[in-house]
């Protein structure tokens, strides 16, 4: 006390200062240290996101089941996937800055963080999901959701190249979508019949992947990571491995291990749920915790995404294919792919001794990214 305010000190005396409760100082210190290890500095360019979310496809994908849209997202780089090869266990090398796109912020690109740290990060993210305020109940089936996306494509590899933006509207049940065409908002209604009464979440999901069916499937998952992964493993077992890869926004190739299969399938559901308002907070928390237990998962912090925000990339192949998570809201916001340095090499070319495309971007170069710059519940298509 300065003595300058002795009158106020006397009149409004406060209790003596206390220490934190036993154990709390060390606990919060450890949390801080973990946080500092995994969290990059905040970007000055904050995302203008009224509700946190992940996403969907571009307007031209309207009317296509969302699960297939995920495949379309990587179809632009399908040629890449065709000859995709991964150096097992290695993280991508630091990539050179791409023309027209700023280099990623610290830590350096491709710096994957070990799984133990990921687990800590994901657990925090999971808790954030549980506590999320913006989505407390399942949206109405016909609720319109607006999103604005920012997409980057490497010139000569992905078309369109450079940074492009898009806007789209979709109802939560996926039955209607809207987009701009020649300056006018066009609304499209799906001809797919809605799930009949009594349809189980999994049957509805397998019939049509929409934000709602993904939401309902997530809501049906058990909370325990082991039990959750057991359910995912059963569901994934009924799917063709190539099909999982094709439908997954993150996986570039079919899963090779059981952990990859479960990660890819879980990512598939999360991504589709993010196409609406995300999944039930508790269910997403459980999913994140389950992902953290899978071997071979890595994260890349410090990504500056195409929309100008910060992101963390989660991957099961050493960082080449990443699901992007907002480090502030801990919600899925995008997908990203880095070059393996090999490029599309067909089986026939490989037989002839060709190991890589000579002009393909160097290993670790960003070749594709799509992130959600903004999303919001709106009354009608055309509203933002």
């Amino acid at each position, binding site marked *: *006390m*300065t003595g300058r*305010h002795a*009158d*106020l*000190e006397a*009149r*409004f005396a*406060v*209790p003596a*200062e*206390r*220490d*934190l*409760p*036993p*154990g*709390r*100082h060390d*606990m*919060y*210190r450890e*949390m*801080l*240290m973990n*946080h*500092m*290890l995994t*969290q990059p*500095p*905040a970007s000055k360019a904050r995302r203008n996101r009224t509700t946190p979310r992940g996403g969907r496809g571009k307007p031209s994908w309207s009317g296509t089941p969302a699960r297939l849209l995920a495949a379309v997202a990587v179809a632009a780089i399908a040629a890449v996937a065709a000859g995709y090869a991964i150096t097992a266990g290695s993280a991508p090398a630091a990539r050179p800055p791409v023309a027209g796109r700023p280099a990623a912020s*610290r830590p350096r690109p491709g710096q994957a963080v070990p799984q133990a740290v990921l687990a800590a990060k994901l*657990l*925090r993210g999971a*808790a*954030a999901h*549980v*506590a*999320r*305020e913006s989505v407390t109940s399942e949206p109405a089936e016909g609720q319109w959701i607006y999103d604005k996306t920012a997409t980057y494509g490497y010139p000569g590899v992905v078309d369109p190249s450079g940074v492009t933006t898009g806007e789209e509207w979709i109802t939560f049940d996926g039955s209607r979508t809207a987009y701009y065409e020649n300056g006018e908002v066009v609304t499209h209604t799906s001809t797919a019949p809605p799930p009949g009464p009594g349809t189980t979440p999994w049957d509805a999901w397998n019939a049509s992947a929409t934000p709602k069916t993904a939401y309902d499937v997530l809501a049906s998952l058990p909370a325990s990571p082991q039990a959750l992964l057991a359910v995912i493993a059963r569901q994934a077992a009924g799917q063709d491995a190539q099909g999982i890869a094709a439908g997954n926004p993150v996986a570039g190739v079919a899963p090779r291990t059981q952990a990859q299969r479960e990660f890819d399938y879980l990512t598939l559901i999360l991504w589709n749920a993010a196409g609406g308002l995300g999944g039930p907070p508790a269910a997403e928390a459980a999913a994140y915790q389950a992902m953290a237990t899978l071997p071979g998962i890595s994260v890349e912090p410090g990504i500056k995404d195409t929309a100008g925000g910060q992101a963390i990339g989660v991957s099961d192949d050493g960082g080449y294919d990443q699901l992007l998570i907002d480090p*502030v*809201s801990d919600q899925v916001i995008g997908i990203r792919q880095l070059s393996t340095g090999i490029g599309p090499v067909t089986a026939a070319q490989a037989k002839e001794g060709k190991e890589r495309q000579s002009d393909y971007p160097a290993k670790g170069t960003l070749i594709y990214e799509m992130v959600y710059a903004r999303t919001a519940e709106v009354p009608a298509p055309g509203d933002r």
Partner: protein
Amino acid sequence: MDQLTDVDDPTPQLRARARAGDADAFGAVFDACAKSVYNHAFRLTGDWSAAEEVMAMTFLEAWRGRGKIAPDGGSLKPWLLGIATNLARGQHRAARRQRNALARLAVADELPDFADAVSGRLDDVARIKALHRALAALPRPELEVLALCVWSGLGYAEAAGALGIPVGTVRSRLSRARARLGKLTDQERHANSRELMTVSDQLIVEKRDARR
């Protein structure tokens, strides 16, 4: 690490290290300032749990905003108290989400209770609540200046830096607060002190009942 021993009077090197993202430097700052931030937050919120969360959030926010640390200056405590003051207002959505997350983590850790300190903390809560009622005449900005200058002992310049306002504004706010509080009649002050006693008495009765 020798430069981290006196974080209340940090060297320019410590500030530079904290600004550059040196985790060890931040850890030392946490060790030195967590208690002050915690108690400041309690005095603003009147809730020990909320104070714990605000304290934790303060350091997360400090890490995020470490680029704002000026190369020169004294203790980082005023800056941290300023962050805590903003967070205690509870008006930032992201901050609230983070606070909830932290609260859940704290619960999940199932740390041992601290029953022996509970009664004292309840007394503290009663006293702070009563003070808040007595200070209800103060607009929030004036209460915050009072909390920083009177309760946390910051100088005018430090409080100004903490809140990001001119020194003159700190002076005027405190002056206005003093004027407002000066209008309390002797009767009101008496009522205030009686209220404090009454609340304490009630707590004693409740504790007695709880033992039965």
